[in-house]
């Protein structure tokens, strides 16, 4: 089973990796732009996806996510800018790229006259010349992986949206790719199916060192499984950061902490407030009353290291104060997403 950890907001995560700044970039784009007539589908995208990470690509409909993926795979040509995958140019060397990549399209379509097994065999033969027994074994494993073994010999035209999505995942990983590019991989799935897809993605990263670059609308999924995130709106990149960084509130040079605490008296709490405010690395402290006499503090610190080490200690050093909750304030991905989209729309980013 994947490592299950719990963040402060109690959302389970599937063992998200550290960002791995030192890991080499698998995908890199520089000023990647695509226009259709007068419509700019993608505007000067600068992207860097690190090896062995799960990279969530977020944005509303029409943001340019699918266009970016098609450009990376050589299915469309950039109007300007450049990009590389595994160091290979996405325009002139896309054949070499496609040998090492697995791709699942949004709303995937396959040949209706083929069965699921025939579809996977068709895909496998682009990568492997044989022997037949080894190819068949790979097909069986892939079918089992996505739970389609019992429907392996049914024609694809009779498949539901969810079954097509599962088949899509199976065909995308049939060549044991170093990079998976998944366009809305969980879009047509029920909650169980979504969970399974996320687990498979986490396993592929953890057990196979596969890098996964995927787009989705489902923000909760991104938060659960992604190491890094990019947010795109109307073709423009609004943000790109490790997920933890994106969810941390405060802005440049400021870290925001949340404390829940009780004091034996107002005087005790005032002492604690004064003690905290007197620190040179504290820029503000706001207090809000909560139910049952509890207080909620929002503390902004300019020195994260000093705050991490001393803030809680300072508060607890005041006799008669009990701290029931402490941590860096994090926003949900949904809050960060809408915040960026709204700021991006007004040109503030």
């Amino acid at each position, binding site marked *: 089973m994947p490592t299950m950890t719990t963040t402060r907001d109690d959302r389970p995560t599937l063992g998200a990796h550290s960002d791995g700044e030192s890991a080499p970039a698998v995908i890199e784009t520089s000023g990647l732009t695509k226009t259709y007539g007068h419509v700019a589908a993608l505007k000067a995208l600068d992207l860097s996806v690190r090896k062995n990470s799960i990279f969530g690509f977020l944005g509303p409909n029409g943001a340019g996510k699918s266009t970016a993926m098609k450009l990376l795979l050589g299915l469309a040509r950039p109007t300007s800018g450049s990009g590389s995958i595994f160091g290979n140019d996405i325009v002139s060397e896309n054949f070499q790229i496609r040998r090492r990549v697995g*791709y699942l399209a949004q709303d995937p379509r396959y040949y209706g006259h*083929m069965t699921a097994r025939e579809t996977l065999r068709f895909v496998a033969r682009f990568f492997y010349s044989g022997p037949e027994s080894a190819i068949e074994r790979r097909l069986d494993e892939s079918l089992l992986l996505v739970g389609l073994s019992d429907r392996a010999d049914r024609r694809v035209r009779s498949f539901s949206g969810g079954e097509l999505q599962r088949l899509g995942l199976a065909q995308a990983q049939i060549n044991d790719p170093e990079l998976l590019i998944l366009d809305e991989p969980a879009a047509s799935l029920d909650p169980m199916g979504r969970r399974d897809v996320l687990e498979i993605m986490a396993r592929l990263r953890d057990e196979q060192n596969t890098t996964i670059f995927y787009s989705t609308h489902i923000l909760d999924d991104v938060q659960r499984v992604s190491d890094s995130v990019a947010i795109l709106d109307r073709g423009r990149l609004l943000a790109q950061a490790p997920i933890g960084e994106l969810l941390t509130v405060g802005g440049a040079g400021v870290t925001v902490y949340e404390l829940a605490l009780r004091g034996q008296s107002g005087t005790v709490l005032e002492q604690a407030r004064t003690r905290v405010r007197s620190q040179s690395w504290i820029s503000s402290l706001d207090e809000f009353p909560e139910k049952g006499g509890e207080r909620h503090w929002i503390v902004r610190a300019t020195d994260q290291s000093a705050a991490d080490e001393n803030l809680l200690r300072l508060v607890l050093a005041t006799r008669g104060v009990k701290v029931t909750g402490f941590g860096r304030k994090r926003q949900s991905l949904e809050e960060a997403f809408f915040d960026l989209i709204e700021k991006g729309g007004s040109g503030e980013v």
Partner: protein
Amino acid sequence: MKSREEVLGPNDRGTAEKNTEKPEEQVALEPVGGPPSGIRNLVGKENGEWAAGPSLAAHGIIWMFIVALISAAVAFIRGEMEPGYTPKDINDAGALMFFVLGSVASVIAVVAKTQGAIIGEKQLGTAAWVLSKPASRRAFVLAKLAVHFRWLLAVTLLFPALVFYGLMAAISTLPPPPLHFLGGLAILALGLLFYLALSLLLGTTFESRGPLAGGVFGFMVGGFMIANYAPWLTAAFPWLFFQSGYYLVTRGQIPAYGLISIPATALWIIVFVLLALRRFERAEL
């Protein structure tokens, strides 16, 4: 869904670094060589598509009836109606029908079967899916050209020709000269390839089927009309291939315009295929 660990066992996939400790199955699987890649696989898929659906049987029955049986029936009726007809006269009557119907049938079959060959795949997204794998765009187009030519040739011309020839041998008691008949058939086959190449070129050019169907039919019908007003143009295109075939079978020779139109058509086919490959190479999927 099952985890890979559950599927493969803990030791199969748990490698720390890719390719440093290959699982047993990876060693066993042999990677495909370099480009041009995927042509065999794509040919297999196109063949499977022809064989899987009802279209093979439908095309086979329709064109057998129209090209072979109607042509032979016309020859039979003419022979019955004209007691003075020699076996050659009966053969000539049948041959005219066969070459006219075969020529038209091949164009209709090309449009019916291939109007969605590339456009349909572009619209559905299957072209993008296939070409996200290590398959060359050239292989994608050439596989369609080869397989559609094979099956369309078989259902519109070859099988009907075999049946027609057998029936003519029975009706006239003296079948047409076999080599000349084969030569005429080869001319029709070249015409079929011309319209197929044109259809694929239009498929790489347009995004909907209407212009493709209109373009191919329009070219054929327009050619028949142009032949009346600018006969010299017929030397450049396969519009009068049915006449060339007919004359070859009935008179043992091809008229001058027909002789020129054969290499000219071959040249057009090469141009169309090269243009189709070039266009599809740049297509946005």
